[in-house]
């Protein structure tokens, strides 16, 4: 049985001989602004991303708030219909392209990946900085499009509305996404090469932490998928600028082709968002259960399998568009196959916890939240991959609830778990466990209040993307909006106690959780500018906690 320790972190105090916080580290070795803006250090670039995507997250969250407030009442009273369209479009675009896709790979991946594989940096540090500035430039262009008047097509840019009829700033937004797409490609490229070529001696593929496997799979998806959306948005831009009909049926074009090309990227993009979370959760659960991951090899391969399956299921977004029923059947069948590696992961996490000595630290609470929400999100995905059910549920709030359970309940919960997990490593300080656990709990409760009613709304037939709805849907919508306010509190809390801990928090030792991966065992907190004193040599598999627990407590 799991032994549950109610007192939090008996090992968090810095022992006397651990003087890492006084030595030179990547945060204090140079304080000038330029040393941050032009840094080639993967850790600092990770922090640049952290700050930027947090701002984008706040913006996207505010837009979500506007959408939810409008839906508080059945009548369209807060926002005009057109403004509402622009609000949910901006919410979707910002959250997906400017927050979720770069979230774990660009922040956690940048910071942790070289540390975890015992490297001094990523393979191409300059390219890494370029990725950041491409992301920044893309954000600026996208925000310009919003300030000019916004886009009203939905984040999917479906043709022919986006190509012919919409009078909003589609081309500007497409340029922004094109640029940010290159940032994503270059980050993926950098990570793939880093994992292949920069591992320290002894770190064979099957000694890699599972987070690395997940980031690697994600990077491959970024490499393969992103160029397709880039060229698709390019074609959309050509169509709008030249007034020709690539996708406009009036001019001989084929709007379904746009959806094929769009989803060839955008379905795998879902896995760009969720895969890193899956890997990260394996780290967190293993560390806080003090137990090796159950079925390491299977978990590693399931990340790769999810990445590959992600490319052969895209047309399940198009069951109602008039694609061939035979193709639809095949795509439906293939979609079910994604459930296999995802299910394997869920069972592995449970089996990892079973018999472990579980400590309920903040990252673990977030991971628990992740487990429940991701499972619900994944299982409802099976409803939607069933052809017949999807015809009924397509474009209803059931879809909205389903993908929020994956994106917010899965990806963002994982991201929050990760930020809390590596915070002592990033800053060398400990945040307040009390506030951390509270925010994790509030997020979980608020999330379910927001999105569970939407499953019912969708089942009852409330379509998405409408700013008005019949009166009988109001109760559930009020639930949802109320839940969104709770959720907002849950997300806002870390934005206060985390920065506060950076200045006033207790100092963390190099390995406050007794974790086993190189980022914890062989670096100081915060790490030195070149990560390792001497190149580490790995002699065993990760997550080997045997005989280490005692040593950790005695710190």
């Amino acid at each position, binding site marked *: 049985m799991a032994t549950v320790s109610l007192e939090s972190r008996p090992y968090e105090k810095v022992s006397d001989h651990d003087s890492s916080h006084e030595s030179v580290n990547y945060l204090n070795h140079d304080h000038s602004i330029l040393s941050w803006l032009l840094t080639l250090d993967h850790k600092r670039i990770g922090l640049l991303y952290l700050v930027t995507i947090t701002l984008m997250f706040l913006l996207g969250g505010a837009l979500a708030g506007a959408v939810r407030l409008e839906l508080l009442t059945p009548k369209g009273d807060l926002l005009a219909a057109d403004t509402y369209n622009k609000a949910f479009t901006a919410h979707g675009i910002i959250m997906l392209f400017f927050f979720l896709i770069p979230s774990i790979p660009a922040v956690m991946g940048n910071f942790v990946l070289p540390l975890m594989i015992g*490297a001094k940096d990523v393979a191409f540090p300059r390219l890494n900085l370029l990725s950041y500035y491409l992301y920044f430039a893309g954000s600026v262009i996208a925000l310009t499009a919003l300030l000019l008047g916004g886009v009203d097509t939905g984040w999917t840019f479906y043709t022919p509305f986006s190509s012919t009829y919409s009078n909003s700033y589609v081309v500007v937004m497409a340029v922004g996404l094109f640029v940010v797409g290159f940032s994503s490609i270059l980050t993926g*490229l950098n990570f793939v090469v880093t994992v*292949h070529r920069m591992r320290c001696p002894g770190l064979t593929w099957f000694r890699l932490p599972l987070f690395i496997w997940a980031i690697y799979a994600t990077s491959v998806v970024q490499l393969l998928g992103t*160029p397709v959306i880039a060229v698709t948005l390019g*074609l959309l831009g*050509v169509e709008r600028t030249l*007034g*020709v009909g*690539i996708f406009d049926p009036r001019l001989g074009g084929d709007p379904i082709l746009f959806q*094929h090309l769009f989803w060839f990227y955008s379905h795998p993009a879902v896995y760009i968002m969720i895969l890193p979370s899956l890997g990260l959760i394996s780290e967190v659960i293993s560390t806080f259960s003090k137990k090796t991951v159950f079925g390491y090899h299977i978990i590693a391969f399931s990340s790769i399998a999810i990445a590959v399956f992600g490319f052969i299921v895209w047309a399940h977004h198009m069951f109602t568009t008039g694609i061939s029923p035979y193709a639809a059947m095949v795509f439906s069948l293939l979609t079910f196959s994604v459930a296999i590696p995802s299910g394997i992961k869920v069972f592995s996490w449970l089996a990892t916890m079973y018999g472990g000595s579980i400590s309920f630290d903040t990252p673990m609470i977030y991971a628990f939240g992740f487990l429940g929400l991701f499972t619900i999100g994944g299982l409802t995905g099976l409803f939607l991959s069933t052809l017949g059910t999807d015809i009924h549920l397509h474009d209803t709030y059931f879809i909205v609830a389903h993908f929020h359970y994956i994106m917010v309940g899965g990806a963002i919960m994982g991201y929050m778990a990760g930020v809390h997990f590596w915070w002592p490593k990033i800053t060398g300080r400990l945040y307040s466990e009390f506030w951390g656990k509270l925010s994790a709990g509030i997020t979980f409760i608020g999330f379910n209040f927001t999105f569970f009613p939407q499953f019912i709304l969708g089942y009852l037939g409330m379509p998405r993307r409408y700013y008005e709805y019949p009166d009988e849907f109001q109760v559930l919508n009020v639930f949802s909006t109320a839940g969104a306010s709770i959720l907002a509190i849950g997300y806002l809390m870390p934005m206060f106690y985390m920065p506060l801990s950076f200045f006033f928090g207790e100092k963390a030792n190099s390995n406050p959780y007794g974790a086993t991966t190189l980022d914890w065992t062989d670096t100081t907190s915060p790490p030195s500018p070149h990560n390792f004193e001497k190149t580490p040599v790995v002699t065993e598999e990760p997550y080997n906690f045997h005989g280490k627990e005692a040593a950790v407590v005695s710190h």
Partner: protein
Amino acid sequence: MERRPRLSATNQTVQDHGQHHHHKDLAHHFDTLEQQHDANTLGMWAFLLTEVLFFGGLFAAYTIYRYKYSAMFEEASNHLDITLGATNTVILILSSLTMALAVRCSQTGQAVWTGRWLLITIFFGLMFLGVKYFEWKHDYNIRLMPGKDWAGKDFFWWQYAKKAKEMEKHDKGHSHALPDPKDVLPDNDPSLGVKGIQESQQARLFFLLYFCMTSLHALHMLVGFVLIGIIAYFAYQGAYSPDYYSPVENIGLYWHFVDIVWIFLFPLLYLLGAHMGH
């Protein structure tokens, strides 16, 4: 396989003395030149993987429309100039050969010849774009490229373009003085109608894809010129040696990739309707 002695010696140095005796071309975060070379090569191949999918989006659009509108695509393809297309194919393959020779010279340490072959590669590349320029200009004049009299829903564009081509044959050099589309095709032409409009749309899709694919290809060549130019400069400066030539090797990979794209574009765009005769 025989190892180059200098490279092994360098490795030995790094292993023996640690970071303080780095080779001048070795970035700080790599341990050995080989590791750096392998990372660079892998990075380039991964980039080309991305490029395959980048062009792949266009090829997918081409495939679908080629399937849906195969008859019109063959007819439309017949309006492209096979001679120019074939000439360009030869020129680009030639440039691929000179690029391969440049990489070979960098491997054997012939710095000056590396630079020379690179410049010759640029020369052939420019020749390709020169031919392309005149071809595009010609296409534009007979209304096959986006521009004048191109867009519009209810417009017998294809019939007009065919007429423009015919007039151009009779009236060499004065093609820019084409009459107004309305004069060429009276509204009451009974042979046209819905079919005429459909044909126009389908043929226009072919030329639109022709325009998108060839210009994206040309854009890649322009980027290539800049990069090859920079690397040629460094080659003349003696920056590359058998120890360290991955920039030359990588620009070579890039250029060969551009060549491969053209190898597919040529038959798909120019030769579809060749059997129908001009």
